[in-house]
Structure formats: C-alpha cells, structure tokens
C-alpha cells in the first residue's frame, strides 16, 4: 500500500480549511464557512479511516508485530549531522488510532457546530480555528520526530488559546485563554528542556532511533544518559520527568491542571474537541510514544503513576462539588486522564505486563467518544438554558429527549457500566492496576465510584429534578446537532467491543482481551452505588445535598474552591513574580541602569560647570594658568617622565 500518495492530505486538508477560511472566510463566505470546513474534514476523516483500515487489516503487521511505517519524511531543519528536525508521518498503532479519533471527533464537532455556532459573527473564524487545531493535532500524533511533536504541541496550544478566547469580548474568556496558554507554556518549557537532554544524549531527535538507542542498555548513548547525573538523579530520569511535565501540562495533570476548568470559557463544541477528546490526551499520547524509554527508567514511570492517581482522585473530588456543568465535565476529564496516566505508569512491556498500556490507550479511545458526547450534549443543554449553572437547569428531559438519551448513555459509559465503552476500558485499567499495585487499585476503585456519583449528579440535576423556568423554547435543535450526538452515542455503545489489544499494545504484538466477569463485579458495584447515591440525592429536589455539604463543612469548601490551588498560583504570579521579579527588574532598569547612563551625562555636565571658573575672562589669570601649565609640564617631563 502506498500511503504517500494521499497521506499528507489528512493533516493538510484541515490546514487548507484554516487558510482558506482564515484569509478569505470573513469577507467572502462567512455563512458557508461551516460547510466548507466540514467538507474538508469529512474528506480527512474518510482518508484516515481508510488509512486505519489499510494499516490494521492489510499491511501494518509484519510477522505478527505492527510496524511503524514512515511514508513521508522531510528534513525540515538540520542542526548537525545527526540532529535535525524532520517533518514526517509515522504510521503505527497509536498514531493511526489517534488519527481516527481526532478526525472523527473533529468531524462530529464540526457538524455539531453548524448548528451550535450558527449566527455567530465570527463564524468563519471559528471554523478556521477548528481547522488549525485539527491540523495541529494531527501533526502532533503523526510526528516522527520529538521536535516535530513539540512544534505541533505548541500549535495545538495556540489553537486552544484562540478557541478559548473565541468570545474575546468576555474578560473571563480572555483571562482563561491566557491562563491556559501560560500554564501549558510553562509545562512546555520543561518539555523543551527534556527534549534537549534526550535529543542530545541520544544524539538524535528521531523517535524511532531515540527509542532504540535509549532502550538498548549497551548503547553508548544509553550509558551516557544514565551515568551522567544532575543533583544525584540520572539525566534520563530528569529528561523523562521533564518531558512528562510537558505532557502533564497539556493533559491537565496535578498541579498543572488549573487551566482546564477555566478553559471551559470557550464554545462548548471546542471543549468537546480540544479539552475532552483530543488535545488534553496529548500528554498520554506522549508518554505512550516514549513508553519504552519510560519503561526502562522506572523512577520516572513512578512519577507518572503517582501524578496520574493523584489527579484522578483529586479531580473526582472537586467534580462532586462543582455546579457549573462544564466544569464538572472538565474535572471529570482530568480524572479520566489521570486514569490513563497511571495506567501507563503501572504498565510493563510485553504480553500480560503490557495490559496497562493497552488499557490506557483503550480508555483514551473510548473516552474520546463518550466525553465528547457528554460535552456536545452539555452544549445543547447550555444552548437551551443559556447558562452553565446547575441551578438553572432541571427537568430538561421533556424538552430535549435526544440529548437526554445520549447524555445518559455517556454517563453510563463513563461510570463503567456494561456494555458501554467505558466499562471495557476501565475494567482493563482496574485489572492492570490490581495486578501491579493494590493501593493504586483501591484509589482507582474509589474514584470510579466517585465518577459515577458526580456524573449522575449531573445527569439527574439536569434532566430530572425540579423543572426550572425556561425563557426560551426553541426546541432541541436540528439534524446537524442530532446527527453527531447519535453517531457518538452509537460509538459509545459499540466501541467497547473492539478487541483493542489486538491492535494496540506496548510491544506491537497482539494482546488478547481479558475479560474477567468476576473481577468486574466489584467495580461495577461500586459505580452502581455511586449512581444510586446520586439518584437519592438529586433525582428529586430536596435539601439533602445541601445538608451533606454543610456537614462536611471545611472539607466541602476546600473541594469547592478546588483546594485553593488557583489561589496559590495567583499568589505566586501576582505577588512573587510580578512584585518581586518583574517590578524590581523594571525599576532597576529605569532607575539604576538608565540612571547610571544618565548619571554619566549629569556628571559630565556638573564637571563642566564646576570648572567653568578657569575661563574667568581675566587675561592675567589666563597668563597664570599658562605659566602654571609650563611649570607643570617642565616638572613632569623634565624630571618625572622622560
């Protein structure tokens, strides 16, 4: 199969969409921009499905192992003989899987937005940005080169920035976009340094070669990077940790998650695409990409595990207390990504050991569907009630039956109820963690229960509970809204049955799906308990939730305020960085450095004024000076300095 004939079209079509719409959209086809963008993406999605088909079923496998195929590679910027940034296109299980996910979800969002964003003033700009984002995300997943991934990493960051700030005249949106960019930028700094260390120690930036060299314990590069140490920690650990920090920033892992809830200021479809299904899992993808290297350095893998678990639990707790539905979803995203992370963290390579890896990516895959579904549905709800707040909602199931159904499906999926997609992937994660680390398993299990609780809290609050007055009654929406919801709902129901391990595994070999009925009893029970609890509390309007939150007191408040992490950040930036670094720098520049420069001028002027008396206008003084000059010269040059 010759991929190179068309493969580049997949990322380039969205880019073309971006360019066309960005440059000419506003003036020439503001109205039809959505259609154009969607068409571009439709083609891209079809092409990626076609590619996936070809790869997984026709020619991806050689001797039972999935190969990475590089149909395209171009040296973009060469630094030295070994080190160069290549723009390439790699096909391997995870990238192909991501291709499908990205184009598919993006397509859904495009279609959904046709309805959702209708009538927006910057309709074409919106689609242009979506195109840009899709392009960047595709570029990210197909990277053959660690620097390529960094570039697209930055590009998705900026697209995210642009989309979060789409409602630019809302100060909160502006602030959120800024925050998202800066926080992830901070993480990217770590990523960049990590890349520098890895790249230079491995003497390559190419993923394939890099992984090969750094997993071969005999190679000089491996010896070099492991023996060199900095503050007693080997360079490899440093590098991987730094790379992981980069990933954690994008994936909103603790403590770099603070931008994600705020990012919900963007249009909801955008949240579905970027902040639920695709961009935020880039961190997971990154770790998966470098998994062999992480695996060889257990220390960094432990960090991944720890951060993943902590984020999963932490986000779930906060999610229980939030009242903004998008924020709840955002925390749930964070929590689910935490799952994926620690699943990677506890994984090994090869056969059964690699279950965590497969599970993680499986969860990534299924999560993309049900989480985007959740967001889109939430979007529909918000569109109807013009509010994000739970208190403005209730009893909506009458008004929006389709939304109700798909939302329920998605909630069940995320809670891990058979036979929805989430069940399969989550079971695998729990299984993997059970097998490797019981504490992790326990926390994961608890989190799973929490997940079910807060998701159904959401579900019941929106669709059941007491009906609120609705100001607008313009129905649920047209086909372009419903179609994506249905499609995603169908995917949510069926995706779990894909035997994912056949295609994606840590070592490229087939990994049989494990399905232990016995094992899944416990998690499902826990989830059901969570659902039950939610039902009790939120199905009908009652005072219990209030009472419980009151009784929890400080704990609840702390969780409600997201454990005050935002405030800590605010303190560090506003008080410390601005006041203790920025202001002094500006002050020093204005007063000291500039002062010295001006001072030189001032001193010159004052010397000039001090010696003006020499030029007294009295000719006899002149003569005296004249003579004194001669005497001085005579003494100096006759006697002292011959």
């Amino acid at each position, binding site marked *: 199969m010759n991929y190179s004939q068309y493969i580049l079209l997949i990322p380039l079509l969205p880019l073309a969409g971006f360019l066309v719409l960005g440059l000419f959209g506003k003036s020439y086809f503001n109205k039809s921009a959505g259609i154009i963008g969607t068409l571009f993406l439709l083609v891209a999605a079809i092409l990626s499905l076609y590619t996936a088909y070809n790869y997984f079923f026709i020619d991806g496998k050689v001797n039972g192992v999935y190969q990475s195929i590089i149909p395209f590679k171009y040296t973009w910027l060469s630094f030295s003989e070994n080190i160069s940034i290549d723009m390439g296109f790699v096909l391997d299980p995870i990238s192909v899987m991501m291709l499908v996910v990205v184009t598919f979800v993006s397509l859904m969002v495009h279609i959904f937005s046709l309805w959702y964003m209708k009538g927006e003033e910057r309709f074409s700009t919106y689609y242009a940005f979506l195109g840009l984002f899709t392009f960047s995300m595709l570029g990210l997943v197909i990277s053959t080169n660690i620097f390529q991934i960094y570039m697209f990493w930055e590009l998705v960051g900026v697209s995210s920035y642009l989309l979060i700030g789409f409602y630019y005249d809302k100060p909160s949106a502006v602030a959120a976009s800024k925050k998202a960019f800066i926080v992830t930028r901070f993480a990217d700094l770590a990523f960049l340094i990590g890349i520098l260390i890895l790249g230079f120690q491995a003497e390559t930036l190419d993923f394939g070669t890099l992984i090969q060299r750094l997993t071969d314990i005999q190679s000089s590069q491996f010896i070099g990077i492991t023996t060199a140490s900095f503050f007693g920690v080997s360079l490899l650990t440093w590098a991987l940790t730094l790379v992981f920090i980069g990933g954690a920033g994008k994936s909103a892992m603790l403590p770099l998650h603070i931008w994600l809830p705020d990012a919900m200021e963007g249009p909801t479809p955008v949240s579905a695409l970027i902040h639920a299904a695709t961009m935020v899992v880039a961190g997971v993808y990154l770790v998966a990409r470098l998994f062999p290297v992480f695996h060889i350095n257990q220390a960094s893998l432990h960090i991944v595990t720890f951060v993943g678990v902590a984020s999963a639990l932490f986000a779930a707790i906060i999610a229980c207390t939030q009242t903004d539905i998008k924020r709840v979803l955002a925390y749930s995203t964070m929590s689910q990504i935490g799952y994926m992370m620690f699943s990677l963290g506890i994984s090994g390579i090869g056969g059964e050991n690699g279950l965590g890896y497969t599970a993680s990516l499986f969860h990534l895959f299924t999560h993309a569907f049900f989480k985007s579904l959740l967001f889109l549905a939430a979007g529909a709800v918000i569109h109807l009630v013009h509010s994000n707040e739970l208190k403005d909602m209730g009893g909506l199931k009458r008004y929006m039956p389709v939304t109700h159904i798909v939302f329920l499906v998605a909630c069940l999926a995320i809670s891990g109820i058979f036979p929805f997609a989430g069940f399969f992937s989550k079971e695998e994660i729990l299984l993997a963690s059970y097998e490797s680390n019981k504490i992790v398993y326990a926390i994961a299990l608890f989190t799973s229960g929490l997940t079910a609780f807060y998701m159904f809290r959401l579900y019941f609050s929106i669709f059941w509970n007491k009906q609120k007055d609705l100001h607008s009654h313009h129905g649920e929406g047209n086909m372009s809204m419903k179609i994506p919801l249905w499609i995603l709902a169908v995917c949510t129901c069926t995706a779990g049955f894909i035997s994912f391990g056949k295609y994606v595994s840590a070592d490229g070999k087939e990994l049989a799906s494990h399905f232990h009925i016995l094992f899944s009893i416990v998690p499902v029970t826990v989830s059901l308990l969570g659902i039950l609890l939610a039902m009790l509390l939120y199905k009908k309007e009652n005072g219990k939730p209030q009472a419980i939150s009151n009784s929890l007191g400080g704990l609840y408040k702390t969780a409600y305020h997201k454990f005050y992490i935002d405030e800590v950040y605010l303190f560090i930036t506003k008080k410390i960085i601005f006041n203790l670094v920025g202001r002094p720098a500006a002050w020093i520049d204005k007063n000291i450095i500039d002062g010295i420069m001006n001072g030189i001028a001032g001193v010159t002027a004052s010397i000039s004024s001090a010696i003006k008396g020499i*030029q007294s*206008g*009295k000719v*006899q003084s002149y003569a005296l000076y004249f003579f004194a000059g001669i005497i001085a010269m005579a003494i100096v040059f006759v006697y002292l300095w011959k």
Partner: protein
Amino acid sequence: MNEIPISHILFVSTALFFIGMYGLFTRRNMITMLMAIELILNSVNINFVVFNKYLYPDKLDGIFFTIFIIAIAAAEAAVAIAIIINLYRNHQSIDVEEAEEMKF
C-alpha cells in the same frame, strides 16, 4: 671679563624675565602690563647677546636675533597701545579687571 661666570649673567636675565612676568600677572593697568612685557623681552635680549658672546662668537646670530626682537617689541607695543587707546575710548577704562565681559 671672564671672571663673571655666565650663570651670573643668566641669573640677572632670568630674574628680569620673572620680574616682568610678575608685573604682567599683577598690574591692573593695561599699559603697565605692556611695560612688563617689555621687561620680559629685554631679558631675552640679554640672553641672546650673552650666549652669542660667550658661547658661539663665530656667528652673529644672537646679535641679530636681539635686533629683530627689539623691532618686534616696538611693533607689538604700538599695536597694543592702539588697542588700549581704542578700548579706553569705547570704555573709559583701561583696568584689565574690567575687561572681562566674556567669560565661562
């Protein structure tokens, strides 16, 4: 004749030179300043003559120099006095301390 060492004569001329200089520095009247200049030139003349006579008697360079200096001194004095007179006419004062309009 030769019993006077040359340095004694030079002492006299040098002293004359510095007396003239002192006058130039301290006299406030412009004309007296001019006189001081004449003293200075005189001392130089003595120098030339003495050097010529005692050290280099084969040529008359010193003598001639002296003659020319005397001529120049006259010209200089004439011009200076003209200027002083003009100043006096315009300003009614030839006190050098008052000729300090331009300074700094």
